[in-house]
């Protein structure tokens, strides 16, 4: 079964939030910088918990940050 594609706007949102660095986002969301890099590159789909934590850093809903492309 093919993996569901989940895209995200994290890179765009980081720049919209005072050019937040990947390191800053990682520290606020409680993950490593490498994980943020992997998520941005579409190589890793985060768990629901981490997705909520990332969305909370930007003060947005999960679906505003992550999109399910089917």
């Amino acid at each position, binding site marked *: 079964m093919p993996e569901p594609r989940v895209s995200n706007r994290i890179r765009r949102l980081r720049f919209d939030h005072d050019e937040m660095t990947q390191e800053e986002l990682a520290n606020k969301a409680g993950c490593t910088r490498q*994980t943020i*890099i992997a998520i941005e590159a579409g190589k890793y789909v985060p768990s629901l918990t981490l997705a909520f934590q990332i969305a909370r850093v930007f003060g947005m809903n999960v679906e505003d940050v992550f999109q399910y492309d089917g």
Partner: protein
Amino acid sequence: MTPLQKRAWLGLGVGVGMSLAILAVFIARGVTSFDDDLVLRGITYVLCVGGLLVYAVTLRIKRRKLGRSEVLVDERDEKIIKRATMVQLWAVLLSLFIWSIALTEAYWDEKSIPIIFAYLIAISGLIVSIIGQAIGILIGYRRMS
């Protein structure tokens, strides 16, 4: 590079180092002399226990550093290490089956195997386990990075 990746490279180094050390010892002193050669037996025990201790100490150092405020291990690392454990398990099982078949075929007529192979199987199990996990971790990062 994440701490887990560093640990994997270290594990790979320890595994390859142990393999080379064992090979060097047995090439220098000969496998068949194990029964009479006390020095060879001593070296074998030291390599076996020493390798395990070195690997255990490196794991302990990593755990101590986890008290820092920066997140060092997250859900992606945990997912990778879980998958790497499966690679490790299959590698060890495969090595045991290879040993079993090879020894059965080689010593079929004698109906018994030299005692040295008990240690070689144990040491190779440890080495395959260390290298298998390290490779599993490195493959995991390659796929998820």
